[in-house]
């Protein structure tokens, strides 16, 4: 409902507005090839290359035959692609008297990994939940003690653990190794879960209590469905940690039949007899690193979200 007076005023205002629009207007233009952009992207490119190069060399070498490797062009792509080194690393490479390749170590590692991860994540999540939601007299002391455990170097505890496992009759068995992994995964994972649950509003917990839910009902029906990201983080930390472990594996397994993959890889690569088969070594290393890699790629965004969620509150 514009009356004449208003129309007149708008008309009058038009001239000066048009004049004002001559200057800078709208979003500021972005220069794509500015000096700072070139420096930033240039640096990033060089750093990325620096990181990716060893991996490239490994993949390329693992696909070459020995004659080609002896020529010495380690950066050159394979002239003739062969998967023989991969097959050999998996099935035939020798460690000591066993010549059945990494496959044995892979299955050993798998048998260690699955129960260790499940047990440690399950226990740590309940620990973290109890320590953040059901504070009891001395719960802070308990938590501090657990944290101190995270800062004691593993090496200090190796010998006592060997004795403990021997007394329990578990020394040298995979069960013993699983127990060790579960125990050592406890501090960091409990901390992770405790911090995550501490960030969940306390009122939610109170509401559930008024609704008559007990310790386990609140954990399974309220808290668990909300904590997928932190479970993914704990899972990744545990899977990579346990899979990549060398020290415990070499200390607490007594015979080559039960060596985890990392120990076996070391034995293959460091064997002093015969010709150094670089292509087989590279293939074996890549095979060993495959499990953590797959986990990282599969979890992706969830991992980042979980890390952020678990890290906020202390």
């Amino acid at each position, binding site marked *: 409902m514009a009356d004449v007076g208003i129309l007149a005023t708008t008309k009058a205002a038009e001239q000066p507005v048009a004049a004002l629009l001559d200057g800078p207007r709208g979003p500021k233009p972005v220069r794509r090839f500015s000096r700072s952009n070139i420096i930033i992207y240039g640096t990033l490119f060089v750093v990325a290359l620096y990181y990716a190069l060893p991996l490239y060399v490994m993949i390329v070498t693992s696909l070459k035959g020995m004659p080609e490797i002896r020529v010495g062009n380690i950066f050159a792509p394979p002239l003739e692609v062969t998967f023989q080194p991969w097959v050999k690393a998996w099935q035939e490479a020798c460690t000591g008297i066993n010549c059945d390749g990494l496959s044995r170590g892979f299955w050993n590692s798998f048998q260690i990994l699955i129960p260790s991860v499940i047990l440690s994540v399950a226990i740590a999540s309940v620990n973290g939940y109890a320590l953040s939601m059901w504070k009891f007299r001395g719960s802070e002391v308990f938590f501090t003690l657990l944290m101190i455990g995270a800062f004691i170097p593993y090496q200090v505890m190796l010998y006592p653990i060997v004795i403990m496992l021997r007394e329990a009759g578990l020394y040298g068995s995979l069960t013993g190794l699983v127990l060790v992994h579960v125990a050592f995964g406890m501090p960091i994972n409990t901390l992770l879960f405790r911090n995550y649950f501490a960030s969940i*509003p306390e009122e939610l917990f*109170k*509401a559930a209590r*008024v*609704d*008559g*839910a007990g310790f386990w*009902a609140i954990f399974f029906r309220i808290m668990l469905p909300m904590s997928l990201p932190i479970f993914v983080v704990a899972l990744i930390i545990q899977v990579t940690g346990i899979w990549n472990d060398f020290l415990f594996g070499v200390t607490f397994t007594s015979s080559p039949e039960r060596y985890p993959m990392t120990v076996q890889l070391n034995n293959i690569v460091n064997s002093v007899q015969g010709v150094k088969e670089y292509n087989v070594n590279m293939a074996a290393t890549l095979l060993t690193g495959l499990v953590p890699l797959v986990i990282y790629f599969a979890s992706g965004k969830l991992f980042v979200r979980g890390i952020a969620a678990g890290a906020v509150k202390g």
Partner: protein
Amino acid sequence: MTLLNPSVSIKNLDLSFGAVKVLQNLNLDIGDGEFLVLLGSSGCGKSTLLNVIAGLLEPTDGQVWIKGRNVTWAEPSERGIGMVFQSYALYPQMTVEGNLTFGLRNAKVPKAEIAKRVARAAEILQIEPLLKRKPGALSGGQRQRVAIGRALVRDVEVFLFDEPLSNLDAKLRADLRVELKRLHNNLKNTMIYVTHDQVEAMTLADRIAIMKGGKIMQLGTPAEIYGKPQNLYVADFIGSPSMTFFDGTVEGDVIRIPDHDLPLGTYEFSQRPATGRPAIIGIRPEHVMTGDNLRSAPYTAEVTADLVEPMGSDTLVHCAFGGQTMRVRMDGQAQVKPGDRLMIGIDPGAASLFDKETEARL
């Protein structure tokens, strides 16, 4: 005031966290069907008290009785209470229906009964279309309705509200406040309501308990709290803008404040002080008379307006009087500019007089 048949009864309640005494020897009886508001600034212990009643915090000493049963050691779910929280506290991964029924499923209530109660609560709160949605897809007001519904389906005697409207914007808060009042009128449940908002307290409450430092400063109807505050703290806390206080001495039938002697003929003393006793008189901005009302004023004076705050419905004028900046609430239509001279009238009968030493009402 002791009630014969209280719905909730707090007896000699103490609660301390280490050396910090949050609640001190607190006694409170809440009648059947009463709407009681616990009002106070933050840290006064009002939410703590509510949590103790709910059983979410353990008292250091004392008892909680609900419906004639000592529930001091009972679990929250066994106390016959429903609770609504400030942050709604809805279970994010459950639908609205799941949220409403969670408590009933825990209590193993038969399915048919659950469906009946959900239907009733959803109808009362008008959330039927939302039942299949997750809380994340609801607005703040809808979430709070669901939270109230969760208390409603429990079919309990006592409702506990912990600042339920504080997270909502002003308009929604006013709307839901009215709805809560209507809900109470229909249901006739006992409701205990914690807030720091005095408008909520005044409009909703049958009785208000004003708390400070873990103690109840005054317990009374909104009219009593507003008209006859029992001590200086309550007088200062209730009313927005608050009273203006003047130091003076009571001498016979007048109180002598700087430059003025106000007659106390219309004031109802609960205890008449000795002559010469230092006292404080508090006058509400809305009790200062202007314009036509001046004729009935026992005492009049001329003042100069310092500062004018127009608020639409009324206008607040600051002026110098009795050595203080006095606030005067005038009609919104009043045309006042800073520097204007105006006549004001004071009726000490509507004012409040406190002993300077004990800060108790005289």
